[in-house]
């Protein structure tokens, strides 16, 4: 029986990773997830290896999930949310409620907050016609499609698209929205998927609309040079999108070299949506008495509560694992101090 317990809120890659790190060092972990499955956003991602692994990290989540489920020090509560938190005598008492209304109290020595992010809702960018047009999807939906079906098809007719356009920075680096941050992972996700599609559906023409291409991966220079041969890079962000009669998408954008607006028709439009603070951030920040930064994400840690993963801000799977390790280390140091204090 572990003599110390930690409550981990959120079962995505950061929560899973922190739970494993703690469990392996003999700490009892209660992992609370509000959805009906563990794995979070990252578990929906596709492996993007072409001839070689491209280090997207999607497989890491699978391994973490298995390790967490196998570890006897970890107990998992799905469909559960924290309703109330009180602290007395150095311990926390958390009221957890299941979706079916059942509620119970969990006693814990420390908390790891790993509630992740909320993908930007592109309905807030009306000109792109997300939800209005079948063939406008998000990069997360494309990740899921590639994971489930291996190939990409148009939602409207299940045909393979001949022309795909990725639109970057939807909801990121956007002063009108007040989202003054780069979401860090979208260039890597989009370009890796683009190359995967080129390998599996070689006839597809892919255009990449962007502001700047961000560096990802240690071999970025090599990757980017190869990507430029396979993907048409356009430094512009499209203005309006219209639907054509056969469910194509007419995209208009300003062509710098021609100094005029040009229209082009695509079969599928992929919006790379930004990473924004989690849906429950305000709630949780009041509930846990936790501060948020000026971007709206959580601050790193406060007395006994340690934040990990994308709840802190945009980060890759690799960074989320590192962030979880750090939170786990901090939590352990905190528990050690408490233990010493108890022992006098």
């Amino acid at each position, binding site marked *: 029986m572990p003599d110390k317990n930690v409550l981990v809120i959120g079962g995505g890659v950061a929560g899973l990773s922190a739970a494993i*790190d703690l469990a*392996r*060092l*003999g700490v009892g972990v209660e992992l609370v997830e509000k959805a009906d499955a563990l794995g979070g956003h990252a*578990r929906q*991602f*596709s*492996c993007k*290896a072409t*001839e*070689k*692994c491209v*280090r997207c*990290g*999607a*497989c*890491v*989540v*699978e*391994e973490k999930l*298995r390790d967490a489920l196998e570890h006897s020090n970890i107990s998992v509560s799905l469909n559960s949310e924290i309703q109330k938190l009180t602290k007395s005598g150095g311990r926390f008492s958390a009221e957890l409620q299941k979706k079916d209304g059942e509620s119970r109290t969990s006693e814990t020595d420390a908390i790891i907050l790993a509630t992740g992010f909320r993908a930007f809702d592109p309905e807030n960018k009306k000109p792109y016609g997300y939800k209005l047009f079948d063939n406008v999807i998000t990069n997360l939906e494309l990740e899921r499609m590639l*994971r*489930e*079906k*291996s190939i990409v098809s148009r939602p409207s007719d299940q045909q393979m698209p001949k022309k795909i356009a990725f639109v970057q920075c939807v909801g990121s*680096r956007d*002063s009108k929205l007040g989202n*003054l*941050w*780069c979401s*860090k992972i979208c*260039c890597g996700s989009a370009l890796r998927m683009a190359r995967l599609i080129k390998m599996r559906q070689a006839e597809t023409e892919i255009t990449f609309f962007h*502001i*700047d*291409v*961000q*560096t*990802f*991966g*240690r*071999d*970025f*220079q*090599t990757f*980017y040079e190869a990507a430029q041969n396979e993907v048409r890079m356009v*430094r512009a962000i499209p203005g309006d999108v219209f639907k054509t009669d056969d469910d194509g998408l007419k995209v208009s954008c300003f062509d*710098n*070299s021609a*100094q005029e607006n040009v229209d082009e028709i695509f079969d599928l439009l992929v919006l790379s949506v930004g990473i924004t603070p989690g849906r429950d951030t305000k709630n949780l920040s009041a509930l846990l008495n936790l501060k948020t930064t000026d971007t709206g994400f959580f601050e790193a840690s406060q007395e006994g509560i340690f934040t990990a993963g994308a709840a802190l*801000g945009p980060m890759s799977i*690799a960074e989320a*694992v*590192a*962030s979880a*390790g*750090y939170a786990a*280390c*901090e939590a*352990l140091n905190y528990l*050690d101090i408490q233990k010493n204090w108890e022992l006098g």
Partner: protein
Amino acid sequence: MLSGKTLILGSGPYARDMAASLLDRGDKVMIATEDDTFDLPSEAEQAEIFTGTKLTSCRGSVGDFAFTLSGNGEKIYGTAASLVIAEEAGRKANFSHYGLSRSDRIISLSDLVKLLAGEETFSHVRKIVFLTGLKIESNPIVLEEIMEASLRLQSDFKVQTYVLTKNLKVAGNGLEALYRRTREAGTVYIKFTDTMPEIRQEEDGSLILLFTDEIMREKLSLRPDMTVVDERVLPSEYMGELAEILGLDTDEKGFPQSDNVHRIPVFTNRKGILVAGESGNMLSPVNLPADVGNVALRLRAEKADDSLDKADIGPGCARCLSCYRVCPYRAIRIIRNKPEIMPPACEGCGLCAAICPACVIMLAGLAHKEVSEEIPASVPQKGENFIPHIVAFCCSRSAARAEELAAEAGYTFPRGLKIVEVPCAGSISHDHIFSAFRNNADGVLMLTCHEGNCHSEYGNIYAKNRAEQIGDFFSEAGFETERLLVKTLASNMAKEFADTVSCFEKQISELGPSRLGK
């Protein structure tokens, strides 16, 4: 807690914080650095410090490393339970990329950072141009330094700054906001997409930049008083030496941590040897305490229960040392001309067992006999009702997991499919493959991780090479080479697993029963 000492290699902020963090917890710490003047604050007096020394040899394994430090004509011998490489990375200024040579007016980013930290007043400097990411792509570490410098130049020294770049690397924490602040302070950003600036260095060392503004399509020129050239972050020479001495796999730049997701965040191919900070080739400014915290955590976990199957060298070793050479984790040492497994370092991958020509290395579950027994023996069928026996050797980290996911997702597999889970595709020996065929397999699949994703680094490459060798042998013997297939799969590729096995079954059905069986 880990008993025994930790040897930290390095003298920069990572090494210092690492030492402080471990000492805080009551760990025993040694620090070895080339720096002759290195010292720690007095509260850290418990640490043993070896200044002016370099690591010149290291034997043993996690929990029991025996190392030699050399310097100032002396040698120091010691032991450590674990090693942490916390060396600082090198910088190389990209002068040659822009056809420039260093002068008073053309300096590197590091030069500028030093000037800003010193007494320089920039009194005769009105314009400074930064050149970054124009020939090769830059990164957020460099951009952050450029933006911090230009902010100070603009606000403290009233210098007009220009940043000439292709892609602005703002994928770091707070960099987009910092970018906006520099613009408000007056920094001008000029981005190039399909054109490049012409850079001319005059005889007097001054510089002229001629370019077309891509938005306005206007020809412009700049004559900066000072030009700052960006830099590449590279491994130091010593990092390369350490990788060699310690037998560490490196990434494509030479950092002592291979570019493999299994090494996230601070691991190397060797248990008990960790990398911190710049030694791990960071791409964006990492949170220093986070990295230190991760190393501290992993050191604590090192002693945690280790229930892995370990390889064991039985009697009959021919001392060919193939196992010693193949071990990706450097878990085999040579004692009196004989290889010996160091169990704490062994990860149970089975590469040694597969390569041993005498077949005397054992690993639970990998014995040839056991593998053969898993294949259902049956009389080969003929004609319309032929159901091919397919043996799929699946790496336990990837394909075997994909198979589970595929089964959960409701995919149906060929009726004659037999899964043989192996710790690593590199553990599939020639004998395993032949024994599958001998036991009536009509087709054999070797399902490995993708290149660059193998936990044992090259296990999948060995698997591929073995399949090629056997394929050559088959084709010389007049046997169908299509009966043996190597495929790469990731653990989350359920659909692809189902597709691979059903496609292979179809192919084998067309070929008919194998003639290799009994």
